[in-house]
């Protein structure tokens, strides 16, 4: 081995700044998450929405029907599922393939790692879901309100679902199973039971944004625009704080 000189013992203690930690984590996880299979499969899932939007537009459907389509397929299925795959994998994959040690055993705080991971997942989830959903909203021919509502509710949905599932991935090994159970059973079924239960379902808040922007009438979507935006953002912040705590507390292989 080549004789090289290292700098010796008297160097200052170094810590990585929060901004640098976020940027480094973001870059490495973005590249880890970007696999061809994932991107193609999830894009195909998202393309269901514009196809349905085009079909609806061709049949002169009402604004209510168009909003129901965006709320059901877009906010209720496409965004949560794509966010689950990318958000859960952002930390979960690193833990499972044992590369998390290369981020953990570093002089870095934990919260920038959680933020960087969620940022990487949002970077992939947003275009894969929002572009098809906005296209779907436009193809229904139901006016500008549904397009604007889809953009705002979709963006809020992407942020909150990715954050929650980033925490889920840091917390549980079988995050896909638990995440799907939440999306399909809790949000898709149990939360329909009444307003009290729906209050703890994220889709109620995103649906409320869509309803506010379109002036339509959907079940379980009666929050104001402010509540529809602020509560999910607070949930996202709490989820990332929990993900950071989980990173600090868990055993690393």
């Amino acid at each position, binding site marked *: 081995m080549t004789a090289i000189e290292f700098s010796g013992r008297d160097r200052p203690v170094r810590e990585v700044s929060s901004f640098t930690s976020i940027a480094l984590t973001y870059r490495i996880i973005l590249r880890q998450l970007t696999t061809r299979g994932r991107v193609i499969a999830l894009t195909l899932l998202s393309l269901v929405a514009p196809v349905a939007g085009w079909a609806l537009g061709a049949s002169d459907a009402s604004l209510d029907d168009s909003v129901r389509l965006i709320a059901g397929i877009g906010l209720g299925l496409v965004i949560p599922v794509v966010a689950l795959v990318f958000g859960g994998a952002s930390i979960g994959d690193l833990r499972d393939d044992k590369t998390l040690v*290369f981020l953990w055993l*570093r002089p870095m705080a934990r919260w920038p790692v959680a933020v960087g991971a969620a940022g990487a997942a949002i970077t992939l989830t947003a275009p894969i879901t929002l572009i098809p959903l906005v296209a779907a909203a436009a193809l229904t021919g139901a006016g500008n309100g549904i397009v604007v509502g889809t953009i705002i509710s979709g963006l809020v949905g992407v942020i909150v679902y990715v954050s929650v599932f980033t925490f889920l991935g840091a917390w549980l090994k079988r995050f896909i199973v638990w995440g799907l159970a939440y999306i399909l059973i809790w949000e898709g079924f149990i939360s329909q039971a009444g307003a009290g239960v729906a209050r703890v379902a994220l889709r109620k808040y995103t649906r409320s944004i869509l309803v506010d922007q379109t002036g339509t009438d959907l079940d379980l979507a009666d929050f104001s625009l402010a509540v529809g935006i602020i509560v999910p953002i607070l949930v996202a912040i709490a989820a990332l704080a929990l993900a950071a705590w989980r990173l600090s507390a868990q055993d690393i292989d």
Partner: protein
Amino acid sequence: MTALPPPVVQALAAPAPPPDTGMITVSEASKFFGSIVAVSEVSFSIGGGVTALLGPNGAGKSTLFRMICGLTPPSRGTVRVLGTDPRHDRAVRGRISLVPQQDALFDHLSASEFIGFAARTHAVEDPDRAAGRALASVELSDVGSKPVGQFSKGMRQRVKVAAALVNDPEVLILDEPLTGLDPVQRRNMIALFHRLGDEGRCVLVSSHVLDEVARLGSRVLVIAQGRLIASGDYRDLRGLMDDRPHRIRVGVSDPRRFAAALVDRGLVSGLSLDTDHVLVDTLDVDGFGRQLAVLAVELGIRITEVSPLDDDLESVFRYLVEGR
């Protein structure tokens, strides 16, 4: 690993309560995973230089290393690295490096990128230059632009070592770092470890291969069944191994006559035989080896096989732990 027999043989110096001056100080540390005892009441303190951690597979070496790096907290006891708790002290993590046993790397990165990433996450000044130096230290400069996913196991090991060196660590923990290396790379890597140790760094290297430990250095910690069963100078351990009874299987054309001659000359402490072999227990393995051929010539018999049956590491540990 739940039933832990008391060590019959305290091989070298019995593990003593550690002084506070070591760069790594482990005090009565235990780690449980449910009912499984992975590490049990381990205490030691080590400073600068190379120390080898010897133990068979599943002995608790990796768990002990994970505790030292703060990757998992001890269930009982304390671990201090450079005077602080590595689990909770963020700053000390910049002064420790670990070469993990697992093969996982960011496979989409090139070797230069991977080591540069390690440098940046350690806030190293001029990370690209540091990465270049670290790559050179493991002789991978010429393949630095290739993705590590295309590397052989030995090259991946060297990438991990380079990434561990890039932050100029004071404490370097290497979990089976010689796995997958060819003999030349092994020799070079061991020389590198010694040089790092000579610079005053605390270099702790695990291995389950006795011959590797012999070359890693004179200081050795021996762990088996989660317990530290010996610590001290490797030469003492080697001497103890040479002094223990050895079992050898000898294939001969006339086992009965050969066995009688061995007993007559007092070369064995016990034996058994079948139609083609004599199973010999001897305390003087060198003397037995010298007399074997002489005896065969004198008796006019043919030797077809000489196989030591207890030269593997498991049998050494069985002897150290259980006295058999």
